[in-house]
């Protein structure tokens, strides 16, 4: 894929508060990139720098080989879908969608055709003359997207666009967005704090915290091979434990040795490990690597969630088969399901890793 956007060493502060610190990121053509992180991690600021609504203190924004760092938003060939939609409430749906085209002095037959096309694309045909005020949240969201895409931007920026919708609608819209992106064949840069949303839609996820990029990679990579404790903790439920790397392919958790697949950490070195709850297998007593006692059982719909006390540490396990409170169970983990990570080295990394 061709490189389309390059953020180079971007720094941004408000007063004493550092929002972004030397952030660099490459976004390719036709890629669905999600900036994921807790509130205050700098993801929205990054998006607003891309849109031209903020100017970085340091660094460059390169768009298609051109430096656009100081270009105002109205001169950029990208469009944004704002949080809370930001529709023009005193105009009709058609006037909202036509806003950008009228500025570009397109003729009216072109504009009308574009409005029809955009409304069809977002499944709101025939809504031209409706007042924006009469639309539901989901419909307003679609209009906001239609208003942005009629301008045929190279990149669509989306700032938590589904945040205000209820769960069912949000899931529907996720599929809609994926479909839209495939039909339009343009780059999407999407900001969210919802890890499920990020995993569902993205080609690439950029996990951010406290102004730093923690990890960049495909959803599978981010989920299965988190590079540090923050990513592991932020993406999905996880058992995040301190452990000791005894030697290559052998890790000890609270003194219990487990086989793993990681190498190159040295011998007897303190590390962090992550095991996803669905990878913790519960067997009968003495049938696993170590025994534990079930302390909690919750029905979650698709599966049961069980807490198991192993040598004073609480393990979380997901399974379709319940194990009841008080039961003693054996625990096994497949070697490739144990993800070994370096302990944070510097204080900065430490700060970035602890707390959301």
């Amino acid at each position, binding site marked *: 894929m061709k490189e389309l956007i390059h953020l180079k060493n971007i720094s941004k502060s408000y007063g004493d508060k550092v929002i972004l610190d030397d952030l660099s990121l490459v976004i390719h053509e036709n890629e669905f990139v999600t900036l994921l992180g807790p509130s205050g991690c700098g993801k929205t600021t990054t998006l607003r720098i891309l849109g031209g609504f903020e100017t970085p203190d340091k660094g460059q924004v390169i768009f298609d080989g051109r430096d656009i760092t100081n270009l105002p938003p109205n001169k950029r060939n990208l469009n944004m879908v704002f949080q809370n939609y930001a529709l023009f409430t005193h105009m009709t749906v058609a006037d909202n969608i036509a*806003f950008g085209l009228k500025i570009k002095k397109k003729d009216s037959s072109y504009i009308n055709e574009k409005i029809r096309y955009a409304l069809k694309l977002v499944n709101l045909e025939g809504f031209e003359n409706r007042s924006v005020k009469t639309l539901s949240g989901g419909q307003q969201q679609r209009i906001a997207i239609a208003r942005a895409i009629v301008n045929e931007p190279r990149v669509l920026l989306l700032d938590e666009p589904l945040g205000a919708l209820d769960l069912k609608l949000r899931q529907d819209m996720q599929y809609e967005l994926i479909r839209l992106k495939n039909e339009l064949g343009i780059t999407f840069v999407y900001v969210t704090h919802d890890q499920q949303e990020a995993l569902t839609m993205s080609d690439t996820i950029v996990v951010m915290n406290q102004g730093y990029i923690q990890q960049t990679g495909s959803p599978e990579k981010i989920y299965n091979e988190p590079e540090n404790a923050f990513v592991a903790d932020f993406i999905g439920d996880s058992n995040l434990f301190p452990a000791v790397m005894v030697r290559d392919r052998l890790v000890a958790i609270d003194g219990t040795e487990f086989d793993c697949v990681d190498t190159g950490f040295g011998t007897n070195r303190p590390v962090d490990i992550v095991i996803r709850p669905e990878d913790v297998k519960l067997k009968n007593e003495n049938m696993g690597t170590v025994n534990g006692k079930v302390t909690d059982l919750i029905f979650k719909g698709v599966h049961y969630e069980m807490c198991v006390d192993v040598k004073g540490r609480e393990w979380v396990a997901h399974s379709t088969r319940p194990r009841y409170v008080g039961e003693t169970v054996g625990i096994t983990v497949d070697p490739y399901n144990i993800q070994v990570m370096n302990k944070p080295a510097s204080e900065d990394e430490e700060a970035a890793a602890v707390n959301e």
Partner: protein
Amino acid sequence: MKSRARFLKKIYIGLIFIFMYAPIVLLIIQSFNKSKSRAKWGGFTLEWYRTLFEDAGIIQAFTTTITVALISSAVAVVLGTAACVAMQRMGRRRKNIIMGVTNIPMLNADIVTGVSLMLLFMSIGMQLGYGTVLLSHITFNIPYVILNVMPRFNELNPHVYEAALDLGANPVYAFARTVLPEIMPGIGSGALMAFTMSLDDFIITHFTTGAGVYTLSTKIYSEVKMGIKPEIYALSSMIFVTVLVLLVLVNRVQHQMVRGEGDEE
């Protein structure tokens, strides 16, 4: 018991209204009194209204009042709205401080405002007259505009303006198409209130005006010093009715503003 309590309540409210409005009613009645003596009713007449409109001094004062009110409220609307644009971008603390400072002239005694403006104009060597009156009116009108416009800015979704920029609009066009329609009710009621305040003002005008320049209120004051003529009743009645109509209008605009918000729900 209950009906008696209600009866007493009605008496009480009636008394309040009599105290408040009896003098004005009396004034209006006197303006139609044919007899020059205030003690007796000499029959109905429009004579005093007619002579009023033949009095060149009064017509002059009327013109001054209206032009000062129009120009000062228009200028105050532009300056006040510009101030709101800037204040909206400030942090909460700074915004509150500036709001407090702009509110002071409204609460300040008019005589203090008037005397201090007069001192200022004289100390910088300005000739007191139409210009200084106009400047003073602009000064005390700005806070009323801010008071009316700022709440609209607070309700504004700041991303709406950005969305217009994002779609290719330049800053002026984006402001005119997205922000202005949203704050228009505030500008309308602010302009009406400023106009009314300017029309209504006596004290500040009295201190900042120069020789030969009168507004209606200062004209009445100077005439009264020479002895009260029935024309003054007619003039005062007309001012009262004008201000009353304007206040009702302001209320209507504000009411519509509230209703408009209800529609959005």
